[in-house]
C-alpha cells in the first residue's frame, strides 16, 4: 500500500509523493560511485569545519552525509532543492574525512539526480551556466575569450585587458598559434568536436541537457548537425583527393 504523500504544513511547497522520494534516493544509491564516496559517518564534523561554503551558506557536508547514511528520504529531497548547489566542489571535505567519505562527490551524485528528475531548482540554478553548456557541448571548450566582457563581469575591473586593442589583435599577439581565436579558447579541430558530440550522445548527456533546458538542447542540436555535415563533406572530398593521388 502506498504511503501518504509528504507535505509541509507551514509552507506552500507542493506535496511530494513518497514514491518520488524513493525513486530519487534509489537513483542516488544506485549511482556507480555511491559506494566509493560513502563509507560511514561519526558526525565528527571536520568536513563542515573546513568547508568554504559552510562559511557563507546554510550548507553542511556533514548534514549531507548524515542524510544519506541514515536514508532520510525527505531530508535528501529537501537538500536537493537548494543546499547541494552551495557546495564549491573543492573536495577539502574528502581530503579530511577520517572515513574516506567524499561529501563533495556525494553532492555531485545528488546534482545528477536533481537533473535527471528535472527539479525546478536545478533549472533555476543552471540558467546562468547556459553559455558554458553551449560552449562545452558544441566545441569541447568551456570558456572563450569573447565570453569575458565588461558587461558579463562588471565586478572584475574597468577593462578586460590593460592594453587597449581589439580582441582579435590581442589574441593574435599571443605567441601560440592555437590560441589565435576569440570564440573558443583554442582552435578546435572539426573532427574533435564531432567525436565529442558522439560521446555526449552515447552517455546520456544530451538527455540531461534536454531535461534541463529544451531550447538550449535544440540550439546545440542544430549547431552539431551542421558540424557533422561539414565533417562528412570534408571526408568525402578527402577521399576523392586520396583517390586522385593514387
Amino acid at each position, binding site marked *: 500500500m502506498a504511503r501518504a504523500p509528504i507535505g509541509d504544513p507551514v509552507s506552500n511547497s507542493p506535496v511530494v509523493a513518497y514514491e518520488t522520494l524513493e525513486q530519487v534516493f534509489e537513483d542516488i544509491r544506485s549511482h*556507480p560511485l555511491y559506494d566509493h564516496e560513502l563509507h560511514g559517518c561519526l558526525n565528527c564534523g571536520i568536513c563542515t569545519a573546513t568547508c568554504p561554503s559552510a562559511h557563507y551558506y546554510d550548507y553542511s557536508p*556533514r548534514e549531507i552525509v548524515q542524510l544519506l547514511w541514515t536514508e532520510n528520504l525527505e531530508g535528501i529531497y529537501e537538500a536537493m532543492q537548494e543546499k547541494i548547489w552551495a557546495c564549491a566542489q573543492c573536495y577539502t571535505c574528502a581530503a579530511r574525512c577520517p572515513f574516506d567519505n567524499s561529501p563533495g562527490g556525494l553532492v555531485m551524485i545528488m546534482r545528477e539526480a*536533481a537533473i535527471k528528475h528535472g527539479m525546478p531548482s536545478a533549472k533555476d540554478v543552471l540558467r546562468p*551556466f547556459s553559455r558554458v553548456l553551449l560552449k562545452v557541448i558544441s566545441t569541447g571548450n568551456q570558456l572563450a575569450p569573447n565570453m569575458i566582457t565588461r558587461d558579463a563581469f562588471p565586478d572584475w575591473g574597468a577593462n578586460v585587458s590593460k592594453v587597449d586593442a581589439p580582441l582579435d589583435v590581442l589574441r593574435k599577439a599571443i605567441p601560440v598559434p592555437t590560441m589565435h581565436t576569440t570564440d573558443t579558447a583554442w582552435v578546435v*579541430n572539426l573532427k574533435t568536436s564531432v567525436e565529442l558530440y558522439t560521446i555526449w550522445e552515447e552517455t*546520456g548527456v544530451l538527455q540531461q541537457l534536454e531535461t534541463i533546458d529544451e531550447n538550449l538542447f535544440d540550439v546545440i542540436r542544430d549547431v552539431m548537425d551542421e558540424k557533422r555535415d561539414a565533417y562528412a563533406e570534408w571526408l568525402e572530398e578527402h577521399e576523392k583527393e586520396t583517390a586522385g593521388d593514387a
Partner: protein
Amino acid sequence: MADDKRSEGAFAGFGPEWRPANLSPDEARAATAWVETRIDRRSLLTGRDQVEDVRDIMWQLEKDGEIAVHRITEQHEPVTARTLYGWKKRIPTNHLWHHKSCGQCGNIPGYPTSLLWLMNKLETRYLDETDQTSCTAWNYHGSGIGNVVSLAAVFLRNFHQAYMSAKAQGLPEGYYYPLVHCGTSFGNYKEMRCFLLHSTKLREQVRKILAKLGRLVDGKLLIPEEVVHYSEWLHVMREPIAEKRVIDLSRVRATVHPACHVYKMVPEDVIYDDTVMDGNRVAVSSGLLQSLGAQVIDYSTWYDCCGFGFRHIIGEREFTRSFAIDRKIKVAVEEARADVMIGHDTGCITTLDKNQWIGRAADKVYELPIMADCQLAALVCGAHPYKLAQLHWHASPFEGFLEKLGIDWQKAKAEFEAYLKEVAAGRIETLYDARRSITSGPGFVRPAIAAKGTERA
C-alpha cells in the same frame, strides 16, 4: 542566545542541533593550536589505514591483456619524484603533448605561453595541437551535466590522441606523452583512471564508445602510466630552470595557493618533498620558488580553496569574491606580507586575480599580484612581461611587483603596443611552426611536409 547567534549566521550550515561551545578566548586559542598541530600537517593525509596504489591494478590488467598502457620510456627522459606516501612517480620531461586548459587559454593566455616558452628555453620537444577537447570537468562540477562515463570517455579519447599524434609527423605512436595543464583536468583524470581501473563495467561502457570513435589500441583501452600535471614538470625541472634566471628574487616574499583539485583529489598521487616546506605542503610551485631564490611564506589559510566554486564564479559571484578576498588575499597581505601569490591552476588564478578589484566597494583594497608559477619563472628567466607572460590580461596590479623585480614595465608596455601594430599588419611571432598544430581533418598538412615543421620556429 544560541538561536540569536544562529539567526546571525554564526552557525550556518551546521544543522539545528548545533550549539555554541562558548569557549573563552584562551580556550579557543588552545583548541585551535591543538587542531593545527595535527591537521596542518601532511600526517592528516597519511594517517589512514587504506593505502592502495592503483598502478598495481593497472599493471595486472595490462598483463591480463585487458588494457594497453601508454608507458613512459627513456625517450621521455623521466625524472623520478616522490608522492605523499613516498611512492615513486616518474615525470616525463621531453616529447610532451600539451593538454591545454580552456580557462587558461581563454582567460589567462600568458599561463600556457610561459610554459611553452620555458620549454623552448630548455630545448624540450613538444606538440601543441588542435585535436583535443577540454576535460569537460569544470562544467560537470559546476552543473552536474555529464557523468562518470562521459568524463572517462573524454579522458581516454584525449589521451589516445596524445598517443597517436606523432604519426602526423611520421613519428611512432607513444612518442609524445600527455602533459595536463589544468588542475581540474589533472584531478578529474586521476579520478577517472582510478574508477576505470576498479570497474569492469565502466571499462566496458567506455570501450564501446571509444570503439565507435576508432580510439582503441589493439581493441583495448589505452591507460596512461601516469597522469602528469605541468607543475610536476616544472618541479622536476626547477634546477635547470633556475640556471636560466636573470633576475634576483631574494627580496620577494611569495605565498603559494595550492589548488584543491591538484592535491586534494587523489592525494596519494601528489608530489611531496622533505626539502620543501618540511614536506608538509604539496611540493610543486613552492619547490620551484625556492629554487628560483624567492622567500616562500606560509600562511594560516593555505589550506582553503580560492572560492572558485565552478558554478559560483558564474552564477553566485558574491560567494566567490568574498571568500577570495577574506580568506586568501587579505591573509596573504596582512599576515604573510606577501609581494605576490603564486598558483598552479586555472580557476584559482582567475578567481584570486579577477576578484580583487570589487573589494574597493567594501574598502578591502589589497592589490596583491596573482600569477602562475610558470609565468613568474618565465619572467625571472627574461621573458617579456607583455609579449610573452601576457600580464595585461591580469586584473590584479602587477606593475609594482615588476618594479621590485627591476623590470621597466612602462618601457615593456610601450614595446608591446608597438608590436600590436606589427600584429595588425600580419607580422606575428610564434613559439613554434603553426603547421604542426593540425594533425588531422581540415587544414592538415601531409606528413612529408609537416615533418619539416617539427622543429620550433
